[in-house]
């Protein structure tokens, strides 16, 4: 048993990678994401200005030769802030997703596999979680644990957990009744094996799609949280908080919203294309 499990990922991994390499779109998307990572790592080298340095006499200036993307409400260089903001925003877009996926897979599997009361109780818990106002959780965390970035990431991850649980459970549920699962059960395959071999692959596509969608929501949610006192506090830049700050100046200084909005958009597209590619590569039945 241990041998088959050890074998399976290895051959599958190789196939997945081979599959991925065959898709130019996916490679491009991967390159874009990698570029964002590099920008985040080397932000201080790339950014033309200090992202925190204010020029009191040049606030809300439109793009110019000096400031390619203009300046913000405190006279800081928007381009430099977008570059430095990559750090927090990448983290905000990725870590909560990992939290949500990591927790939802086992819970969804159990609910979908066991069904009945176990499923019913778990689902009511997710219903209840959905009904708890995020705002209260955010203010409570900020008050008790302080404005820590990790808490903010956890809060976002937990808040989006119910969606992932329901998707995972729905996918598990859908294959539970499939002939091949019934067959596997009939020949006495262990629940673990059924879960990992049959249910997990079916869960991957919806979770991947949701994960790549959630990146966008999480990046924006990070800013809302920091505005309530949880997470990165001003003046540290993040794309979400730049968007937030731009709202008051939508008409007078539209460039303040466009730059961070555009990078979020590009990152989200790249993550989604990457997710699609991964989905295809994992899709066993296509080959």
């Amino acid at each position, binding site marked *: 048993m241990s041998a088959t499990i050890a074998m399976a990922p290895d051959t599958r991994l190789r196939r997945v990678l081979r599959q991925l390499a065959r898709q130019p779109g996916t490679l491009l998307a991967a390159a874009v994401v990698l570029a964002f990572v590099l920008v985040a790592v080397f932000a201080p080298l790339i950014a033309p200005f200090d992202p*925190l*340095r*204010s020029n*009191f*006499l040049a*606030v*809300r200036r439109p793009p110019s030769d000096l400031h390619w993307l203009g300046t913000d*409400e*405190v*006279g800081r260089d928007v381009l430099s802030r977008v570059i430095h903001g990559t750090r927090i925003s990448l983290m905000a877009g990725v870590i909560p997703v990992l939290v949500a996926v990591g927790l939802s897979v086992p819970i969804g599997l159990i609910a979908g596999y066991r069904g009945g009361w176990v499923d019913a109780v778990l689902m009511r818990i997710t219903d209840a979680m959905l009904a708890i106002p995020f705002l209260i959780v955010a*203010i409570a965390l*900020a*008050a008790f644990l302080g*404005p820590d970035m990790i808490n903010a990431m956890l809060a976002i991850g937990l808040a989006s957990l119910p969606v992932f649980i329901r998707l995972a459970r729905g996918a598990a549920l859908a294959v539970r009744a499939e002939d091949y699962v019934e067959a596997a059960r009939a020949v006495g395959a262990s629940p673990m094996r059924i879960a990992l071999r049959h249910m997990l692959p079916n869960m991957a596509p919806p979770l991947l799609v949701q994960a790549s969608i959630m990146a966008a929501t999480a990046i924006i949610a990070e800013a809302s949280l*920091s*505005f*309530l*006192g949880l997470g990165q*506090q*001003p*003046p540290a830049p993040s794309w979400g908080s730049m968007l*937030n*700050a731009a*709202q*008051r*100046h*939508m*008409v*007078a200084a539209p460039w303040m919203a466009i730059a961070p909005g555009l990078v979020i958009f590009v990152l989200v597209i790249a993550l989604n294309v990457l997710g699609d590619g991964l989905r295809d590569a994992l899709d066993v039945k296509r080959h």
Partner: protein
Amino acid sequence: MIRILALLLALLAGPVLAQGTLRIGINEDPDALDPTTNRLASGRQPLTALCDKLFDVSTSLELVPMLATGHEIAPDGLSVLLRLRPDVRFHDGEVFDAEAVRFNLDRHLTTTGSLRRSELSALDSMEVVDPLTLRIRLRRPQAYLFLIILAERSGMMVSPKAARELGERFGSRPTCAGPYSFVERVPQGRIVVQRFPGHWNAAAYHFDRIEYLPITDSTVRLAALRSGELQIAERITPTDLPQLRADPRVAIAAAPDLGFHTLRLNTGNGPRGQVLGRDPRIRRAIEAAIDRRVMVQALFDNQYVPGNQFVNPQSQYYDPGRPVPGRDVALARRLLREAGAANLTFTLLVPAERERQEAAQFIQAMLAEAGITMNLETQDNATMLQNGQRGRFEALFTFWSGRPHPDGNSFTHFSCQGPQNDSRYCNEALDRLLIQGQEATEDGPRREAYRAAARIVADDRPVIVLWHRRTFTGLSARLQGFVAHPDSTIRLSGLRMQ
């Protein structure tokens, strides 16, 4: 079918405004519309339509008659005689008289959770001289201040009958003697009032119906004005003014505003009061590092007024001996060295509100140039209020909406027992001056008292006043007769569409 569609389209494209309705966009949803318990600034807008006051204040903050036609202050300042307007009726047909005034002031004093009680605390007893005359005796000789307070929510008269019948639910069906009577309220949606034909001055009010719409987003409030859905939009952001000036459909009315922003520094509220409270030179250094003019220029397109006292520099109570200081980074560094606080670090609590978030980042950057590290911590308003009270702060970024009488800007903030005095700043000489100000009936002595008080506050700096607002109201270009007031409350008399 096509014709109906065409008709609908035509209706849609036409002006949204029904003749006779005035739609006013306000910046937040008011709380319950009961003069006794109302507390938000936004509540004053609909209450002005609904409830006439005993007095009003003019644009120059002078007392003018409203439901009271005249007043006499006794020479000792300990009692005041109110003469009331005859033939005034409440919306429910009840007669307004001295008995009603007595009922109202009593209601302010006795209702559970009344927010008017402390400002009326000087009231000792009332005597109905005749149906249109009321004598009020005071515990302390502060008759003038008392009258000014009757020009605010404390002076709004509600129908005693309705108040008795509705009890605690009065705020959901306010029945007063104002030019408009209550129609309906959709919480957070709108407040609708209609013209009260029985008003004592009904001829001065031309609109049949007024709708107050809470629109919190200033960009959208402006858009609704420009598209013709609103005829008045309050609190236009200064940086949006150029946009308005370019649009022929709208006009702007501007006036100085009583409101001002301050940094409240903890000078003695718990252990955290040590950081900035231990040496006045530290607080002076913070002020010296701030460039108010640059901030007002950058944040508000120069539309606000840099200030350093609890009244506007144009006010008669402003002490000319303490003008708004310029920035002096070298001085700030020197003061810090002298006070032994060369690497000063402290945290400023900022509410979750854009304007102050922006300003706080400016101040942070300016202080950094003087070697001061000011961390920012965002807190929601309720959290910040409590932390302020309990002394869990070094500095708070606060706003005060301002009062016509300087007492309202100073006593609660700086007197030793003042309920707004989160700094726990205490100076007996200042307390004496503030009481002198309360008790002065003549302009001269009052001015002297407040100027002297302002000097002490400006020197000791339990707060650093930053700037005074100006109020900008967006108007439909067709609206006539609008007068902007320093208290930002929209007076409805004389308003009409051209």
